[in-house]
């Protein structure tokens, strides 16, 4: 059937090369198993530039190794971070993955600046090296010992290889000096780890360092060392005597730090409120404690420390260090030999301590324990500004828009209780910002209080828009309001807030009458939610799991809009691969709705565009055109703009994102199936499109949310972000209890894809060949030619590289493959499993190659060439939690018999045209043991023979069983005219 009979699989998982790595004396040594064509492997996986920067060596057994250093080594490790596979199919070894984890730890050390300059002798290069060395604190030491004793470091393979490598390294002698000591050949895992950590810290500190001016030979040893510390490469010239004297001096210099780090305790100050409730008592106490570095919750008081000589020494030396920083500490040190317990402060002194001294103490490695009300953790003890929204003057039944102006009463409150006039008067006269109010100590920032009072006094002079009120209520600041400003509202505004926050459910909205489908209950809720937010003037992100019907919810909104206000179209922007899908879905669910696809070379580009757009409810276009035809789109007053697969605008600086933000429209909606909360970095751009300004500037977002959440793992930052964005994002999961009961156990979808230009050109060429031979041949020859041409057309629909069989690059050449990648990204992001069936083993190999390169994770692949034993192992691995999440199967090898219920998505990449065969394949996932709803996605290239045959089968379901069951033979029985009609390419099948 296929013109290619012999198939070579580039992907055979049991033979996939594995990459290993090992930091060694300032380099990262990289090797592969099997080692054949190692350099080509590196170029194919990491690119020619990075590979060109590596040094290569070959050890005796024929194993090639590469050495990366500095920025190159970091680039190499970064490329492996979070991936099981690099390139198409190169496996990241467990050891390499461990080094990435160590690098992550090193980065945390560097963030906290826990490093000091040092020096080391590189016995391989025989040169002195200035090095940035970690100086770990107690917490880090514990983490280091866990990382340093990982089993992967202990494996004999690593040690053996290291031993071989240590002796095999080619000496890259520079400024040759005799080695200070012979390099140890076999070291234990702790040493290997310590060396690696030091190397990584050194690289990170140097990352991107500018090349300093060359040093003069006459420069002092210190000048040479100082220059080397700031250079991309740390090596410098030193005589042995110079090196040894420098090393001794560095040790001497570091002594204060090392001694402080070595101590098991640190000084800790705890400020204690005056006893009693009255203002009169102003005796605050600061107690001296020793805090265990290993267990910071362990605190020893001075009396305890006095009983032991080492503890006494710890406390005394810490107090001695701090005395120059604080007159209070200095004053507490007597000359009578007794150990002090602390010092006392008045209220003004306590305030100074809380505001200034505490942070200076912390910078000097002194722990400070502050009252919780000071740290703002006790909301009841906070003075804050309150905005009480008066009911806006508009008639009942109207929709409160985010632009509506609201009158606001401002007042000052302690926690939730407004303060009386006399209390306020007392606050205004305060000498010290600490005050005992209603029996609790509170901190009153005089500047903030003044601003709050001014606002409170100005009364109704200052109004807020409803949008500002919402932001305030969600925790953002508006126009310089102090942090912690609260908003109280009843009436329509309170109602709006309650609904936004999900505290009050939305009234379900009746679906538009023209909708030719039943909305499931959760879809009706989603549609009502979209309607509510867009009507209130807010942008909405519908982020439902794939398969929950974002399309139909959106189409229902569009139809309702059109019925309400015909003449105001909605612009829908989506990836090229799904344009046709939207068109078909609209026709299917809303047959009367005027929809126009703005796509392809025949699209309207002239003055008529605005008129054309305004006569359609929905204009569908692709992201590429959004930017190219922006001038055209700007001429239309859009009712709304909808971005499908909104992760396409995740980069705020991209032309697409800028174009999307530039469009004027009544409302904005984003659709995505990926869990937005997992992609914090992408959220700003998305929200800037939906609700501009909500998350501040890109820079402030990075500072306040992205870095704290991604790099520092601050839960309170995530929580604040969730509060801010939550009202504008709706994400339902298939597994939600309320959803799962609404879902059928199996749903089938057609996924209509477009051809790329390359695919269309090839397709037309095959048609011309076929056309020429159709009338000339007959009988067996005609049948053969038809079947051959059909096979070629199907291959082209799959991918040009399958048709050519030339192992050429894959991205950007096939609409189907692009769509598969997009959909699988959502599936795997949601932690679900998928089966991908194709009838062509060659195509299976291409799919595996592309998916592995894109996702960096193993993709299982079952085809006819796999032994039964290997197949069983593969099936078992797919069933395990740590195994691959995507399984590609050739229809023949995997279409029956297997139990693959880990997957709840089934993709039919190409079609067998026999529902029975397809269903049998689908049943690998849809069978006993399946706990989730199964979604079946059948890929069809719109406007091609695939589309026409699909329609034919749909129309004649009965016929298909009988006639089509035999395969594709029936096609050869068609008349030439019918056949030409079947295979011809319809307009709109090709991307623009």
């Amino acid at each position, binding site marked *: 059937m296929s013109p290619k009979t012999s198939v070579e699989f580039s992907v055979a998982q049991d033979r996939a090369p594995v990459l290993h790595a090992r930091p060694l004396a300032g380099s990262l040594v990289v090797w592969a198993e099997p080692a054949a064509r190692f350099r080509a492997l590196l170029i194919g996986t990491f690119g020619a530039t990075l590979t060109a920067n590596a040094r290569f060596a070959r050890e005796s057994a024929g194993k090639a190794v590469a050495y990366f250093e500095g920025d190159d080594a970091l680039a190499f490790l970064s490329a492996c971070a979070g991936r099981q596979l690099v390139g198409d199919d190169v496996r990241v070894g467990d050891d390499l993955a461990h080094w990435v984890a160590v690098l992550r730890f090193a980065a945390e050390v560097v963030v906290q*600046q826990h490093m000091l300059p040092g020096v080391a002798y590189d016995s391989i290069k025989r040169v002195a090296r200035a090095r940035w060395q970690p100086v770990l604190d107690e917490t880090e030491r514990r983490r280091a010992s866990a990382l340093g004793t990982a089993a992967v470091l202990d494996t004999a393979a690593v040690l053996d290889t290291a031993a071989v490598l240590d002796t095999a390294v080619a000496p890259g002698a520079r400024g040759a000096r005799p080695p200070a000591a012979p390099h140890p050949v076999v070291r234990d895992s702790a040493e290997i780890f310590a060396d690696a950590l030091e190397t990584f810290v050194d690289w990170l500190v140097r990352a991107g360092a500018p090349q300093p001016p060359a040093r003069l030979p006459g420069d002092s040893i210190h000048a040479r060392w100082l220059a080397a510390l700031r250079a991309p490469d740390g090596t410098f010239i030193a005589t042995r005597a110079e090196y040894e004297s420098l090393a001794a*001096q560095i040790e001497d210099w570091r002594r204060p730090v090392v001694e402080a780090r070595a101590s098991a305790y640190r000084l800790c100050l705890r400020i204690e409120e005056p006893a009693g409730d009255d203002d009169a008592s102003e005796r605050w106490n600061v107690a001296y404690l020793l805090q265990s570095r290993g267990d*910071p*919750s362990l605190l020893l008081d001075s009396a305890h420390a006095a009983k032991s000589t080492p503890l006494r020494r710890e406390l005394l030396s810490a107090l001695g260090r701090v005395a120059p920083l604080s007159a209070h500490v200095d004053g507490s040190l007597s000359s009578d*030999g007794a150990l*002090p317990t602390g010092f006392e402060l008045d209220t003004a002194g306590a305030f100074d301590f809380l505001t200034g001294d505490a942070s200076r103490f912390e910078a000097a490695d002194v722990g400070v324990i502050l009252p919780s009300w000071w*740290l703002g953790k006790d909301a009841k003890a906070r003075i804050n500004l309150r905005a009480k929204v008066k009911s806006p003057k508009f008639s009942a039944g109207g929709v409160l828009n985010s632009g509506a102006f609201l009158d606001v009463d401002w007042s000052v409150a302690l926690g939730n209780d407004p303060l009386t006039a006399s209390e306020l008067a007392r606050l205004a006269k305060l000498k010290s910002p600490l005050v005992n109010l209603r029996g609790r100590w509170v901190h009153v920032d005089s500047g903030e209080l003044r601003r709050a009072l001014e606002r409170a006094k100005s009364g109704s002079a200052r109004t807020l828009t409803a949008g500002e009120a919402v932001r305030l209520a969600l925790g953002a600041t508006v126009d310089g309001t102090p942090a912690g400003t609260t908003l109280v509202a009843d009436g329509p505004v309170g109602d709006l807030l309650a609904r936004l926050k999900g505290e009050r459910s939305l009234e379900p909205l009746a679906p538009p009458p023209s909708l030719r489908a039943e909305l499931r209950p959760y879809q009706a809720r989603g549609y009502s939610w979209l309607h509510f937010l867009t009507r209130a003037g807010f942008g909405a992100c519908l982020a439902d799991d794939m398969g929950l019907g974002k399309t139909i919810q959106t189409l229902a909104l569009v139809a309702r809009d059109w019925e309400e206000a015909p003449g105001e179209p909605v612009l829908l922007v989506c990836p090229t691969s799904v344009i046709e899908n939207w068109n078909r879905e609209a026709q299917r669910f809303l047959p009367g709705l005027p929809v126009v696809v703005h796509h392809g070379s025949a699209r309207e580009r002239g003055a008529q565009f605005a008129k054309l757009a305004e006569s359609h409810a929905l204009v569908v276009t692709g992201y590429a055109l959004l930017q190219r035809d922006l001038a055209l789109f700007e001429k239309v007053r859009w009712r709304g703009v909808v971005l499908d697969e909104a992760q396409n605008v995740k980069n705020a600086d991209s032309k697409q994102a800028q174009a999307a933000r530039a469009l004027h429209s009544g409302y904005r909606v984003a659709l995505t199936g990926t869990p937005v909360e997992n992609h914090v970095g992408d959220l700003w751009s998305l929200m800037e499109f939906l609700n501009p300004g909500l998350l501040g500037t890109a820079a402030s977002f990075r500072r306040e949310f992205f870095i704290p959440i991604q790099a520092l793992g601050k839960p309170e930052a995530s929580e604040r972000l969730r509060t801010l964005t939550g009202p504008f994002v709706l994400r339902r999961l298939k597994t939600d209890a309320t959803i799962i009961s609404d879902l059928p156990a199996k749903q089938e979808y057609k996924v209509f894809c477009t051809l790329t230009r390359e695919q269309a050109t090839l397709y037309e060429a095959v048609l011309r060949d076929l056309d020429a031979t159709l009338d000339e041949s007959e009988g067996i020859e005609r049948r053969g030619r038809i079947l051959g041409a059909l096979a070629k057309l199907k291959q082209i629909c799959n991918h040009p590289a399958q048709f050519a069989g030339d192992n050429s690059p894959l991205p950007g050449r096939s609409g189907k493959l692009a769509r598969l990648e997009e959909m699988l990204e959502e599936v795997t992001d949601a932690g679900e499993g998928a089966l991908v069936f194709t009838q062509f083993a060659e195509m299976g190999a291409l799919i595996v190659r592309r998916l592995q390169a894109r996702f960096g994770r193993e993709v299982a692949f079952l085809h006819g060439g796999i032994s039964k034993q290997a197949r069983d192992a593969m099936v078992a691995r797919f069933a395990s939690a740590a195994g691959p999440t995507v399984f590609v199967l050739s229809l023949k090898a995997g279409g029956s018999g297997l139990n693959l219920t880990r997957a709840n998505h089934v993709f039919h990449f190409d079609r067998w045209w026999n529902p029975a065969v397809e269903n049998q394949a689908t049943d690998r996932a849809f069978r006993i043991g399946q706990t989730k709803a199964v979604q079946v996605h059948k890929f069809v290239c719109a406007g091609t023979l695939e589309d026409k045959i699909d329609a034919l089968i749909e129309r004649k379901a009965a016929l298909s069983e009988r006639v089509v069951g035999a395969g594709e033979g029936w096609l050869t029985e068609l008349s030439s005219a019918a056949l030409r009609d079947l295979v011809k390419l319809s307009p709109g099948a090709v991307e623009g």
Partner: protein
Amino acid sequence: MSGRRNGWDDWPPRTKPRRVEGGIKAQTKRGAFGTRWWAKRWIAVLESFGLGTRLSRGRAYARGGQVVDIALEPGGVRAAVQGSRSKPYDVTIRMRELTAREWGAVGTAISANTRLSAMLLAGEMPEDIEASFAAAGTPLFPKSQHELKTACSCPDISNPCKHIAAVFYLIGEEFDRDPFLLFVVRGLPRAAVTDLLTPPAGKAHNGKRENGNVAKDANRTDTADATIAPPAVDAVLLQKAGRFPFWRADEELEEALAPVYARATGTALAWLADHRDSAT
């Protein structure tokens, strides 16, 4: 910096010393050597000897980097100073080492004073240390030229000569950095200093809050959480380490490296944010 000053007398005849690249240069470019009282006190010992112009020459040598090597050891100092001849001159300064018994007496005197022992443990030397030495009957600083034996291999018959003076100034700076080097020169090894300073366990003040208990603070609110945070102040460890012994470069260490710390935090933060562990 250069040029002949008015009022210099030219005896002994001034010979230009050979220029040294990368010698030990005094950190204080003008004014007094050493800022702490004990360093000044050390310099005062030298300046009490009435050396005249040899003092200013010695300062110029110290600032110009003519001292090419220097080592402190129990009982004294050895140094090499580049003069006008091709080979540097050897300089030695020797002081009397205290006996173990004398050190014991000093230790007892120090321990009786909480403030003094706290400051010393922290690497500071309060002025009342001299009283503790006096109480033990052994002054910390040499009182006269007799307690100090100096020698130099230069042809100048005057002792101390300008070479000895240069070394003296540099040592003053070094004492500034680490006062316990004074103890080392007086015969107490660096490692023994902490033991000397630690008073035996005694009693605490009779405060009202004394309970002598180990507290477990459940509502701990300090910064030692599991999460990491960029430091509020850059290059704290660099500041903590302090001055570098006998620094020999024109650039200041802290000034040159503090920006590296600040940049490194930015780089590492960005790396962490972009490579969040997706495996977990």
